[in-house]
């Protein structure tokens, strides 16, 4: 159980002129967490666990949560540059960059551009590339599925993914609507990937751990394994009884994997 001093809190932070909601807290080596397509609760066991032994910075991407969505923010490219600016503006270095789902795609785009302030990379159930022929569905299309099917594919345990709309506050509903808009803005087409990224993953020159929920039915472990093979020297591990969002469904396991990775030479 973390003390109040290290429990991370959400603050408004201006990065490159964009006002972001950023969860920050904890002391120690720097971990930056980039969330996935489903957004992120600002109070969540995964971040609290990380903050017990690290300095955590977890932004809500522009358009998610209460983060501003500038009208000219269109793509993951914009997010990659924004977060490179963030590392500099918050003076973060030797960062362990952890990205999950869409956040993993952003993390990879950051790492192929510059690892100057990054010492290691963790990609959890990340998207951003494709391997198959035009009609193969490498990444389940969230736009085409019913809400029930999205939940079933996203989580090993349906209970974890169940949304109680009645219990949600008005602000929660606005955030939920904002998240859908932001996700759609960044991932619509080409769906959930950058056709140019695959070619450049070899540029990632920091130790990389690729983590996958074994029961991820948005992007399969087979996809994750192929992704890992494109990143020099990376390691691929799975978490059992875990779907597409390990930070929500298996926070302790994911935090443990991150800390162990940070302790490696």
């Amino acid at each position, binding site marked *: 159980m973390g003390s109040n001093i290290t429990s991370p809190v959400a603050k408004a932070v201006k990065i490159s002129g964009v006002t972001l909601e950023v969860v920050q807290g904890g002391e120690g080596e720097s971990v930056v967490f980039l969330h996935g397509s489903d957004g992120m609760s600002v109070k969540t066991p995964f971040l609290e666990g990380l903050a017990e032994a690290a300095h955590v910075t977890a932004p809500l991407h522009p358009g998610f949560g209460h983060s501003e969505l500038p009208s000219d923010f269109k793509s993951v490219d914009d997010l990659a540059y924004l977060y490179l600016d963030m590392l500099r503006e918050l003076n973060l270095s030797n960062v362990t960059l952890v990205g999950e789902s869409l956040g993993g795609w952003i993390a990879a785009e950051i790492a192929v551009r510059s690892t100057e302030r990054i010492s290691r990379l963790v990609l959890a159930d990340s998207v951003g590339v494709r391997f198959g022929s035009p009609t193969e569905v490498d990444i389940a299309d969230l736009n085409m599925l019913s809400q029930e099917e999205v939940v079933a594919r996203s989580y090993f345990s349906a209970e974890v993914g169940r949304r109680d709309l009645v219990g949600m506050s008005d602000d929660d509903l606005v955030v939920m*609507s904002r998240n859908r808009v932001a996700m*759609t803005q960044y991932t*619509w087409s080409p769906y959930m990937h950058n056709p140019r990224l695959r070619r450049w993953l070899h540029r990632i020159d920091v130790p990389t751990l690729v983590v996958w929920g074994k029961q991820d039915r948005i992007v399969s472990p087979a996809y994750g394994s192929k992704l890992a093979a494109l990143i020099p020297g990376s390691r691929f591990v799975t978490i059992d009884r875990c779907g597409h969002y390990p930070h929500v469904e298996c926070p302790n396991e994911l935090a443990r994997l991150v800390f162990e990775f940070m302790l490696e030479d």
Partner: protein
Amino acid sequence: MKTWMFCENAYAEGWDKSSESLRNNLPNKYCDPRKAADILHRHLDEWAMADEWGLNICINEHHATATCLTADCALPLYALARETKKAGLMSLGIHIANRPDPIRIAEQIAMIDVLSRGRFQMGLVKASPYEVYPANAQPVGQTRRFMEAYQLIVKALSTHDGPFSWEGEFFHFRDVNIWPRPYQDPHPPTWFVSMSPTGGAWTADNGASVATFLSGRVSKLLFDNYRKRCTELGRPSSPANLGYLAIIACAEKEEEAKRRAWEICGYLRTSPVVAKQWVNPPGYVPVEENAKAIRASQKPGYVPAYATILQHDGTRIPQATATIDEMIDNYVVFAGTPDQVFSQIKEYNDYVGGIGNLLMMGQGGHLNHADTMDSYRLFAKHVQPRLNELKVEPYVERRQVLAAA
């Protein structure tokens, strides 16, 4: 008041294949091409009567759906541009926000306008929300893309001194120089469609005429906003700038006319049948509105406003369960003998302060060809001549008159 014959060219036989979703994901194995051919020819035969009947032709477009086989409205309009000599031809409308190529659209418009020798009116629309999926058109920012496509199409139609280039937010062209150029100068009259009152001012701002579909009493609010905004802009509108689409059925006997109207109302019963995930694409409505709608939908018996009919006393009834009489009372349907249909239209016309364009959904659902032709023929012979002379008079609500009697 001109009347425009309208129908969706539905494949009604496919409607019982799913109660969940007739759009986007209903496999086209349920579409028999031989029957589809019969349907397309049948409706072209009906539209082709327009010259003889003194009516006009209005054609829409929808995609990936058993509710409409017209996947490109330019094609039947071009065929009818050749088959008719007098009738007006209107698209309502071309999906300029969803289609990837506004210059292709400008070329289609020019071809129809030239072939018809200047009888085309161009309705340019956003399409139904669910259609962003088959079009793969980004729903976020779609209104901005609509506006850029509109500006580009108008410029392509009205530029005659050589190529221009366009490097916009959404579209990029290096050599815009369409041949043929349109027949009408600077271009065919423009129509936008709106279902809510606020669309009136926006349409007026963009110099277009405004049409609305089956919105009943809400249409008055829309037209009032449009007229007011036009006056503010220093270019007062005329009834020619206003269009209203109703379900209309005529017959010798009232009962038969209402039966025909009920068949056409199959459109209302099936058009919204689409899987939930496609009903409200992200970005289509502002997030606050979206959040309020989610909250409202938690109440038992909730029906979204767009699926309701506004009544005289301000209350709303669900469209899905409204009776023909309720729909007649609230100007969504005009049905009866020719005399009855005329008085219903006159009452509506007085209610909204006069429109110049009545869009007649004269076929829908399982209404067969013989009944459709009979309905149009009666309308053309007995109703249209009176509409040609129709003047706006003080509004008298028939329903209240009958109640008082």
